[in-house]
């Protein structure tokens, strides 16, 4: 009997696919703004959310989303204020998340062992209801992460500049925090809350070794998230381990392979000539064919340049040089 004949395995693989796409999609933005550990923090807080579900009998997916989102917005608010004491405040939030989770689970009469499936994932526990919620959320995260890429890129690249461009920076910051919280919840059935951050960060770090641009890194990271997610779940089926562990180890192996390869590529790129614009190096660049003489009547704006006059012609500065014009 093939592993795909088991319903639970089909669900686990679909959940892994969605997680493998959503986690690096959000992770790229977190790494870009150097908040790689934010996913970790949210994962800790989400544990309390799961415990609330166990205590009240509500679906842990929903309670985890609510608590993780509240935690993520708190983290974002503390970060945005930028006070020196912010890291201590965040640390306390993380401890509180774990301790609250274990405490509430105990009060619910469950043992902490029941939390294990949420901490490191479990391939047998993805229900049909879970899958619907996970699917809808993961697709929402992907649509936002891809559709708003120019905006999110700008905010994560240079927050102050984005503000000076009239981009509603605070709104996008909160959006990233909420997307991260949702992704943590999506991922808790497969990689689990304690290791979800690895799936947000490691594929991005791996892609980053091989690429030069943001879009390329983003797309490659999605692929590098899916491969370990699927293979980790399959591995967990054959060898009885928590899928989170196998997913993360496979992702890290990928990084181990990409690192030397990336170093080699980079060395080759740097060796390529560091060319400069010839106009700046003082070399002589003549303008293309020129049907008229620049002067007061040609309509091209004039601008003084040292001892002569340049004329602005289709975004180029032209200076008279004997019978032709030079690019200045």
């Amino acid at each position, binding site marked *: 009997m093939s592993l795909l004949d088991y319903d639970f395995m089909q669900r686990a693989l679909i959940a892994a696919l969605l997680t493998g796409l959503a986690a690096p999609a959000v992770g790229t933005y977190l790494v870009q703004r150097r908040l790689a550990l934010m996913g970790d923090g949210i994962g800790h807080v989400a544990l309390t959310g799961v415990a609330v579900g166990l205590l009240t009998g509500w679906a842990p997916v929903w309670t985890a989303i609510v608590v993780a989102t509240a935690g993520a917005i708190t983290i974002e608010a503390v970060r945005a204020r930028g006070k020196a004491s912010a890291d201590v405040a965040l640390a306390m939030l993380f401890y509180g998340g774990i301790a609250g989770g274990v405490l509430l689970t105990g009060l619910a009469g469950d043992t902490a062992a029941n939390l294990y499936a949420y901490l490191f994932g479990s391939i047998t526990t993805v229900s049909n209801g879970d899958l619907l919620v996970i699917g809808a959320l993961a697709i929402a995260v992907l649509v936002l992460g891809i559709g708003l890429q120019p905006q999110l890129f700008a905010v994560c690249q240079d927050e102050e500049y984005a503000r000076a461009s009239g981009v509603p920076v605070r709104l996008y910051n909160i959006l990233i925090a909420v997307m991260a919280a949702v992704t943590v919840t999506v991922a808790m059935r497969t990689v689990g809350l304690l290791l979800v951050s690895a799936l947000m960060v490691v594929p991005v770090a791996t892609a980053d070794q091989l690429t030069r*641009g943001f879009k390329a890194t983003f797309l490659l990271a999605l692929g590098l998230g899916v491969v370990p997610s699927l293979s980790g779940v399959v591995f967990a089926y054959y060898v009885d381990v928590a899928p989170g562990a196998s997913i993360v180890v496979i992702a890290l192996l990928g990084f181990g392979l990409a690192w030397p390869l990336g170093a080699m590529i980079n060395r080759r790129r740097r060796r390529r000539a560091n060319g400069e614009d010839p106009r700046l190096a003082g070399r002589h660049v003549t303008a293309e064919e020129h049907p008229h003489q620049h002067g007061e009547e040609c309509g091209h704006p004039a601008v003084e340049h040292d001892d002569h006059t340049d004329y602005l012609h289709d975004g180029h500065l032209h200076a008279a040089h004997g019978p032709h014009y030079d690019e200045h």
Partner: protein
Amino acid sequence: MLVNEVINDTDCVVTVRGAVVVLGERPVLYGADLTVPAGQVVALLGPNGSGKSTLVRAAIGLIPLAAGQVRLFGTPLARFRDWGRVGYVPQRSTAASGVPATVREVVASGRLARRRPFWPATARDRAAVDEAIELVGLGDRAEESVANLSGGQQQRVLIARAAATEPDLLVLDEPNAGVDMPSQEAFARALRTFVASGRSVLVVLHEMGPLEQLIDRAVVLSSGQVVHDGPLPVPAGVAGDWQHHHAESPRAAQEGLFG
């Protein structure tokens, strides 16, 4: 003070009146005035800590004012929405972040004020980005990672990013600080091209460098107040000297107090 009275506010791209800025507990600006008339290149000069950066950042709404008012293109800052008309170049040594980005990607992020969320870039957007990259002389490096460029080239990327929005006003915060000579030349060239089409520039400078001949007016700050507003304080070449000259000139100081 004199200059401000002559120029009508409505012709001004930037008007700052009596700006007071307090950062933390520390007052940084005490009632500074600044105008940039359309088509002028205005240099903002002054010693370190005199409030130059604070003044330009307040002028484009990055820092709140404790008192005073700002107008951009005649519109009070609180109601100003036309951010595509303003290109800002922050004072920074690097254009890189935690994930690699190509020159084109960073420059394209300057185009956002003219784009809508969820809509792909138009041909016009792409052309503006290409032109901006060409303007700073990085055309053949457009697909390279900004992290692999020199500091001066990265500064040029930031200038191209500001130019990509096709602004009517460029605001530059020490664009030449720690920048190699070819990049300074590239920048002066880009600025000549920009100014030739009749647009305005507000530039914070520590040293004149190759920009000197482009500057129409200089505003000198000292300890959060304007102490000079008029032609360049000191003739060509002696960059740095004006600081001394004007901080000690009683007339300039007086103008500043009541300006």
